[in-house]
């Protein structure tokens, strides 16, 4: 009996040690009441556009738009970054930024109008692009060469003009859950 206990204790200790030792830092949850974008100062919404990076000294910076994260990185070249996370636009799960795929078009509406939307895999990014009938799909390396521009001019994007800072998501609205839900989402959650 004693032996079993000792073994159990040992196993637990090993688990603990191995957990401490490695692995990537875990993404932090978004708290809409307290999180603001480290670049643009706007509230970070707990939505598909939120991103975050964790520095080597374990500081977490959250952003309302992946373009803001790039702007921040450009302004803080001295900071050593341990990991970056983006959201899968459909499931809202956090994905390591270098494993994600990105859909871009100036007409895609994102909180700060950078027009880049993130996905867990290539096929969902491609589906988003084909759903909108416009845009390109990039991987992380290609995104590194992307010129980040905010689409501030050009008037009406998209067909229906539904765009903007609505905060109208979830909560059993119509238009959820159909095939085009992500496209709809983009319009509903755009430019915060």
């Amino acid at each position, binding site marked *: 009996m004693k032996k079993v206990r000792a073994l159990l204790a040992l196993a637990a200790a090993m688990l603990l040690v191995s957990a401490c030792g490695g692995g990537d830092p875990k993404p932090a949850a978004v708290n*809409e009441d307290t999180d603001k974008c480290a670049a643009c*100062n706007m509230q970070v919404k707990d939505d598909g556009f939120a991103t975050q990076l964790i520095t080597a000294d374990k500081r977490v910076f959250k952003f309302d738009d992946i373009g803001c994260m790039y702007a921040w990185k450009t302004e803080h070249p001295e900071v050593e970054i341990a990991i970056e996370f983006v959201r899968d636009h459909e499931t809202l799960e956090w994905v390591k930024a270098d494993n994600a795929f990105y859909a871009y078009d100036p007409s895609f509406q994102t909180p700060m109008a950078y027009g880049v939307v993130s996905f867990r895999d290539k096929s969902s990014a491609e589906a988003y692009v084909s759903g909108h009938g416009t845009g390109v799909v990039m991987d992380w390396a290609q995104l590194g060469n992307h010129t980040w521009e905010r689409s*501030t001019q050009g*008037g009406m994007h998209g067909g229906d003009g*539904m765009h903007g800072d609505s*905060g*109208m998501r979830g909560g059993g609205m119509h*238009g959820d859950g159909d095939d085009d839900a992500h496209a709809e989402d983009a319009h509903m959650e755009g430019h915060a």
Partner: protein
Amino acid sequence: MTARKRWLRGAAALLALLAVCPVRPAAAQDARESASLQELVDRAEAGGTLWIPAGEYQGPVVVDKPLRLLAKVGVRLVHGGPEPALRITAEGVEIRGIVVEDTERRDAGTILVEADNVRLAELTIRTASRAVRLVGADGGEILGNAIEWAGGNVPVSRRGNGIDLYGSNRNRIAGNTVSGMHDGIYVENGDGNVVENNRIDRSRYGIHLMYTGQTVVCGNTGTQNITGIMAMTSHGADVTGNAFTKQHENVHSQGILLFDVRDSLFADNTVEGNRVGFYVEESHGNRIAGNAIRQNYIGVQILSSTGNRIERNVFAGNVTDAEAVGSAGNEVRENHWDAFAGLDADGDGRSDLPNPVNPFFLKLTEAVPAFQLFFGSPGMAFLEGLYASGREGWLEDAAPLMEPPETAGDGPDGRRSSDAAAGALGLALLAAAILNIYWGLRRS
């Protein structure tokens, strides 16, 4: 008596007859009430005026021709469903005096305007969505409407905007009250809009500008929003005479925030009792003048901003007047800082000692946010005193005013009319006292 009775009866009959005359229109009205508002609109002639009979109507309604839709009292438009309660697609439409109640969350909003020169006035809008949305609509007027959230107890971040303009220019938004919405008034991608004399309470951002040019924001007031005025990536704005108080519930509350704002004027505003009065980041070429910045935790916070003129503001009763990082190269002078002990040897009303703004606390808390706990602590003041490196790169007021400038909060120049009135009153009292004493002496 009988004669009089007869006379009365005759009068009653006459009255009844008179009453019968409007019976036909009244009957028609009854019929109309059972008719939908859409049918009334469809029947009305383009360019005409339609007085909506009192009653409750169901949405949705689309107005696709120029029409004035007016209501005195008791006209309610009740709606739920995927379409906006009211959609305006024709130029020159006016809607006035209706109560709109919308229970559905939807992106298109409760009232959607897609045409130019539309006027929405004196409406009461209770919504679970965005109240008013203008898309590609120029030259409209949104006047004296009352907007409030009716979508239940959800956080403001999940609510809809009060008045939401997208790609819309030269609209006038005046005298509205907005309560408990997401952003009270949101303007994106529009030029030359005027936002004046509105009141916004308990919303996320009171007035939110995004990618706008030449927006006029004046005379607006608000309390208890997360941020009073959020001006982002805008140029040529004229933000004057607004008062935003008690933005302090949220950890990121501020009175007025500027982010990436250029060549704009922020003058004669009052920011009082906020967490941060003015927050300025990456903004250049602006003039921030004559503002009353009172009783905030931090008066102004300036980050990475240059080429701004910051002058003749009054800082009073803030826990910390100013914090600044990376903001040398601003012209800062002639502000009044009540916590600053100046020295005016030559008697020109300006301190000969500058008032430097120590960046220590901001730099420290940027590296370790938890050190914000030491905000206002004596130890922090001591450490700040030790920290003086790179002072040439600090923001500093070159010539602080010894006394508050007359302009702050008062008329544009010097002397107040009340001074003369007070003087006259004093003289009158003195004369009365002398007369009293004189008479008193004579009597005795």
